[in-house]
């Protein structure tokens, strides 16, 4: 609303209407700021340096379209025998369009299954990036795009 009144003198009525609509939408979304894929790249570099990351071995299950960005189901499953000598140690999940890139990190032990599910907040349409580190040091990566329908109007 502030944006609209500020520019009233110099812009057309249509611009004002659009600007006020955008401002109203922005007010509805408290976390719209600083979408930054570079933050994810930086976080990955900090974790693994220049280590090559292979795609695959990870099943990243997120809906392609999320109507409510506040509650998006996210399931991760990493293929691994989970034996004492060959297992998944850590899984990190990042979101490149959130104000903070970190979403969740899992730490696994041998035995069982390298699979976990939770519900996450996504501020806008963006990529979810998942990396899995194996006990032998190998790092796998997976990426998925989630379209977030903003405002919850049922689209």
């Amino acid at each position, binding site marked *: 609303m502030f944006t609209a009144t500020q520019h009233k003198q110099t812009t057309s009525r249509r611009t004002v209407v659009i600007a006020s609509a955008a401002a109203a939408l922005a007010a509805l979304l*408290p*976390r719209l700021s600083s979408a930054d894929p570079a933050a994810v790249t930086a976080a990955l570099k900090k974790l693994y340096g220049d280590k090559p990351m292979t795609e695959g071995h990870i099943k990243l299950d997120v809906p392609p379209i999320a109507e409510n960005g*506040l*509650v*998006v189901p996210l*399931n991760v499953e990493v293929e691994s025998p989970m034996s004492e000598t060959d297992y998944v140690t850590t899984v990190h999940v990042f*979101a490149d369009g*959130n*104000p*903070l890139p*970190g*979403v*969740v*990190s*899992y*730490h*696994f*032990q041998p*035995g*069982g*299954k390298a*699979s*976990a*599910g*939770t*519900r*996450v*907040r*996504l501020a806008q349409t963006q990529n979810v990036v998942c990396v899995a580190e194996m006990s032998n040091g190998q790092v796998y990566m997976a990426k998925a795009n989630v379209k977030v329908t903003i405002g919850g109007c049922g689209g």
Partner: protein
Amino acid sequence: MSTQVKPRIRIPATAAKGELIEIKTLMSHAMETGQRKDAAGKTIPRKIINKFTAAFNGKTFFEADWHPAISANPYQSFYFKAQESGEFTFTWKDDDGSVYTATSNLTVG
């Protein structure tokens, strides 16, 4: 906002030896991100559960570091391979230093 913190856990009470069981946990918690502002424009301080741990007979087998991107009333599902009878301990650690725990028994037979 006051939060009544209450864990809910769905877990089988019995399992066969070697069986892979799925555990589902749900915690009631606002998971305040620290990104939101109140009506006066003041930032609402962050208050989330930042760590979830699952242990069996005292041995940790699953850990999750939660960031503010985890939804309110955090849900977590994961797996455990049953080998012997014993007790699960689930721990949630809050930003304010509070620790919430819940336990559950498993009979393997």
